[in-house]
Structures are given as structure tokens and as C-alpha cells.
């Protein structure tokens, strides 16, 4: 079986998810990907993003996860230290034909996006029951 989900080649030249990357206004979220028999689950870290500013779409087998962080501002306070930037998270993945794109589900909790990509029926390994045939 071919790979269900692959990193999409980056056309915008966005950096990989390392600390230095976060100085840019557009950054890639770090992801964990877990596979089981029936689906692939993707977890993307996007602190500061809520369901209101999160956008997930699939177009021509390309999954895009995108979200804007809520810009925090404090009346009358001036910035004293800035170790992380606010801006836009974005990462794209190429899905194989073995993903059932109509059944993709997504949710967000505490700044972590979860996308569940169910495998198409043909991609799920099926155990074939073996019948016992008597020889006479």
C-alpha cells in the first residue's frame, strides 16, 4: 500500500517547525501522525488558534491546515519580552487515494488540531475467513 499522507512540497518557502522559524509571521505547526487499521490521525500544534480562525480543507488530495492566532493586546502595556510570534500557522499534506476524503473529521482543543483521515474501504486490510472443506 502506498503512503497515506505525505508532506506537501512547500511552495511558499515556509520554514520547518524549529524554534528559529517562529520569528516569521507564517509558520508551520509541529505535527504528530498516528495510524491504526482504519484511519490516520494527525495532531497539529497551533497555540493561540481557536475554531473561529481555523480553516481545514482538502483540494485535489492536498490537505491544508491553516489558522490565525488571536493577537493578544493589553491596554497601556508595552511589550517587554517576545519569545514567540503571533501570526498564521499553515501546513499542507498530500493524501493518497486510499484516504476517504469525504469522511475526514477535524476538531480543535487547547491549541491542538486533530484531523482524522479514514482509510477507504479498499485500503483497509480485511481478514478473510478460512472455511474448512472436508475432503470427501
Amino acid at each position, binding site marked *: 500500500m502506498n503512503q497515506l499522507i505525505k508532506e506537501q512540497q512547500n511552495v511558499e518557502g515556509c520554514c520547518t517547525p524549529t524554534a528559529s522559524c*517562529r520569528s516569521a509571521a507564517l509558520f508551520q505547526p509541529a505535527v504528530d501522525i498516528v495510524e491504526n487499521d482504519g484511519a490516520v490521525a494527525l*495532531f497539529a*500544534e497551533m497555540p*493561540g488558534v481557536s475554531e473561529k480562525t481555523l480553516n481545514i480543507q482538502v483540494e485535489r488530495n492536498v490537505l491544508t491546515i491553516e489558522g490565525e492566532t488571536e493577537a*493578544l493586546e493589553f491596554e497601556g502595556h508595552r511589550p517587554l519580552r517576545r519569545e514567540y510570534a503571533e501570526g498564521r500557522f499553515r501546513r499542507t499534506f498530500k493524501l493518497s487515494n486510499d484516504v476517504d476524503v469525504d469522511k475526514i473529521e477535524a476538531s480543535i482543543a*487547547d491549541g491542538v488540531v486533530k484531523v482524522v483521515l479514514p482509510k477507504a474501504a479498499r485500503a483497509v486490510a480485511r481478514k478473510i475467513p478460512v472455511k474448512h472443506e472436508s475432503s470427501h
Partner: protein
Amino acid sequence: MWWTSISNADFNGGSWQPFREFHEQLNKLVEGTLCEYGGMAPKLNVWGTSDHIYVTAELPGLKSEDLDVSVNGKTLTIKGVRKAEPLKEGEQRLREELSYGDFNRSVELPFLVNAESIEAEYKNGILKISLPRSEGDKARKIKIK
């Protein structure tokens, strides 16, 4: 670390070591930095006025009961643990970029705060802490008679 190799190769042999102290300080500085930012230490943004500080920390995927915020003197400490969801039978991790485990970060505040008035809120994976300066620590204007 280039300075370590220089100091070992070129200066440690002789008794005259004019750069040793400098190298030791430099090493200390780097170690201190690694200690503060390394591993799981969350990244912080800080805003302030002369009497109030806001600290925000990037801490995605936590439960508020796994977060601990405390102030001791002028030191604010944020610590906790991010637990990884254990893999179920038949599951395998194809990619692992998120970090899990204990984290601990301390920062020095510019003034003493009123411990009772500290407020912390955890939302969308961002921890926001409001730290008002303690009344006793505030600069007081002295009336001139």
C-alpha cells in the same frame, strides 16, 4: 563549542591562562541559556506597565490541572507536565514532532507582586497570567510640605 577546544588545546597546557576566566564565564552563560530555554521550557511573551505585568506562555495540549503557576518573591515559575496519549493496540506513530513530559520555566519579575491578586487563565493552548504589583512595593509620591 569552539572556545572549549581552544582553551583545552592552547591555554590549559601552560600556567599562563589569561582567557580561562573569560571562557568559564562564557560556558556558564551558554549553560544558563540552555537551562532556561532547553527541553520543554515554554516560550513566553511579557507585557508591562510600571504597576502590572502580563505573561503569556505557549503551552498547547495541556489540561489546566497539569499546570502549576507560583510566585516566590520576584520569581514567577510555570511548571507542569504534558502527557502523551498512549498508543492503543494496533496504532503506530508515523511522525513525532510534538514534545511531551515535564516543563519548568522561571522568570524574574521587575517588582514584587500581590500573590492574592494573581490571575491565570488557560485558553486555546495559551496560558495568560495577570500579575499586579504589590501595594507595598509601589513607588509612593512623597508630599513635600
